[in-house]
């Protein structure tokens, strides 16, 4: 894709790209002003500390186009080998997908469908439990634009946006002046609920230090108060929060005009998992008997929300989908990556922009290391190092255009800064898909020799 749109040449060899998009975290800030010198970004105005690290460290590295069994290879040869691996597998797994464009995600899903595999995304090990909870109790939702313009009571639960989503407070949830909160921060009440008193606590009016693994009980205590049920003061022993504080918080929640709970992986990764998310989603739903409340998960990777959208609109389910029976089947625990690897079931893997070799459970890592795998990543990772075929790719948002979904399900276009000599995920996946289809079609045609033609 051309990188010249919206770019102005300010001095020879120096360009400024306006309104570029940062894809490092789920905030997907689309107000970046990037200064580009050759194949490097040297300034990233408006980016936070993470965004700057993202833009400054994704220059073009001198690596082979691909590695086959650790040996340098060209793209064509590597795509041939990747197609062979995937076609010979009986229970292949496609995994990752949260750091690539929606266009590439669609092709990865199509490949999985052609080969009858499982498609799972990093959602299963971040907000997958929330995805399960949505199916149980629904999601009273809103966009970050509504949060910015309306929210006067904001609860951050089980997350540390100050470190994981540094611009969330200033761009969307706390500081901005909005249509119905004209004084910005002064018009909002902020609550942080967490087991640790993180850096985010400074930004909150109230910090509720919940006991570890007691989020479920805390959410149900608040649900009870929302319904007017009397609670015993011993709730403090259970949750770590006094009844008086809980009543004060509930009073504020009921008086709010527009409240929102933004919840993180402190809920989904801790014992209880989908039941924790379900309790918080149900609390937001219950609060609508009093006033307007929503709940949104805080999403980590730049396009993990896109992965959920693509897998959902294609199969009807958000992650952990088995396509080997000719129709989609969803069963977390059975068809999720961590499980099919830890149980030693998958016999090949296609991994896009993800590093399960460094963040999956030990049994899952042990199995993944022993099966053939095809890995696409702009950077070298433990997963790429152990791959049968490892492709070097360009970086989405920096070299490659396309679409990503912000954490509130709003699609945002990318405006790349400079071209890369490496192919994009989309180009490589299309190459693999066309090889797979050619082979499949050739094999399904009647053999002319056998028919005597």
């Amino acid at each position: 894709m051309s990188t010249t749109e919206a770019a102005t040449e300010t001095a020879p060899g120096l360009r400024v790209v306006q309104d570029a998009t940062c894809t490092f975290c789920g905030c997907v800030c689309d107000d970046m002003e990037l200064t580009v010198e050759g194949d490097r970004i040297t300034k990233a105005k408006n980016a936070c500390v993470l965004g700057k690290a993202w833009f400054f460290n994704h220059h073009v590295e001198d690596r082979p186009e691909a590695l086959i069994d650790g040996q340098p290879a060209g793209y064509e040869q590597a795509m041939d080998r990747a197609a062979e691996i995937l076609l010979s597998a009986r229970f292949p797994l496609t995994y990752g997908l949260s750091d690539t464009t929606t266009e590439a995600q669609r092709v990865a899903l199509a490949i999985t469908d052609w080969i009858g595999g499982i498609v799972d995304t990093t959602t299963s090990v971040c907000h997958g439990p929330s995805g399960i909870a949505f199916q149980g109790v629904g999601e009273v939702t809103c966009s970050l634009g509504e949060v910015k313009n309306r929210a006067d009571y904001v609860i951050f639960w089980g997350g540390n946006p100050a470190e994981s989503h540094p611009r969330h407070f200033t761009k969307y949830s706390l500081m901005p002046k909005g249509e119905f909160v004209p004084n910005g921060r002064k018009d909002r009440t902020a609550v942080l609920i967490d087991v640790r008193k993180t850096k985010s606590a400074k930004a909150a009016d109230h910090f509720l230090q919940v006991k570890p693994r007691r989020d479920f009980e805390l959410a149900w205590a608040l649900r009870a108060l929302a319904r007017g049920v009397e609670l015993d003061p011993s709730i403090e022993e259970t949750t770590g929060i006094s009844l008086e504080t809980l009543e004060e918080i509930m009073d504020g929640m009921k008086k709010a005009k527009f409240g929102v709970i933004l919840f993180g992986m402190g809920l989904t990764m801790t014992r209880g998992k989908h039941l924790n998310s379900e309790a918080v989603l149900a609390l937001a739903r219950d609060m609508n008997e009093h006033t307007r409340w929503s709940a949104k998960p805080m999403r980590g990777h730049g396009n993990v929300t896109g992965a959920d959208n693509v897998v959902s609109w294609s199969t009807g389910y958000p992650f952990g989908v088995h396509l080997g029976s000719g129709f989609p089947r969803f069963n977390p625990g059975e068809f999720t990556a961590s499980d099919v690897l830890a149980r030693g079931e998958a016999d090949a893997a296609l991994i896009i922009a993800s590093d399960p070799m460094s963040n999956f459970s030990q049994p899952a890592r042990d199995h993944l290391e022993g099966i053939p795998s095809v890995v696409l990543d702009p950077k070298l990772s433990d997963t790429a190092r152990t791959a049968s075929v490892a492709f070097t790719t360009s970086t989405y948002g920096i070299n490659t255009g396309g679409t990503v979904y912000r954490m509130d399900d709003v699609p945002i276009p990318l405006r790349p800064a400079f071209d890369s000599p490496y192919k994009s995920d989309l180009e490589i996946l299309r190459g693999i898909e066309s090889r797979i289809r050619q082979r499949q079609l050739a094999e399904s045609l009647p053999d002319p020799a056998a028919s005597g033609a």
Partner: protein
Amino acid sequence: MAEPFILIPGRTSQQGVTLNEGKYTEGYRVEISTLQVAPEDMQRLELEDGDLVRVYNEVGEFTVPCVTARGDELPPGMLFISYGDNSSRLMGGDTQGCGMPDSKGLDVFLETATVSE
């Protein structure tokens, strides 16, 4: 003697920054290999910043240097480490049918270690 703790692996901004610099940089390696311990626990266990500790559960173990957590960020009895290879070593394969292994709030034991990894 080993003491029981609850381990919270999580993200830090330093982890995010060094992740972009590269997973094979010294900065990233140090960030994911440093265990934060509450000041009260450091004192009680007579630990100093930089001392090696071994953290283990029924799944696996790691040995890393510890540091005192900032201010009152961590309550006693709780440990924090940036997500990464070390924290994953303590994650079991069981997801209780939901796809997500127990990844935060892990029951672990901590003891001082005398030898480096």
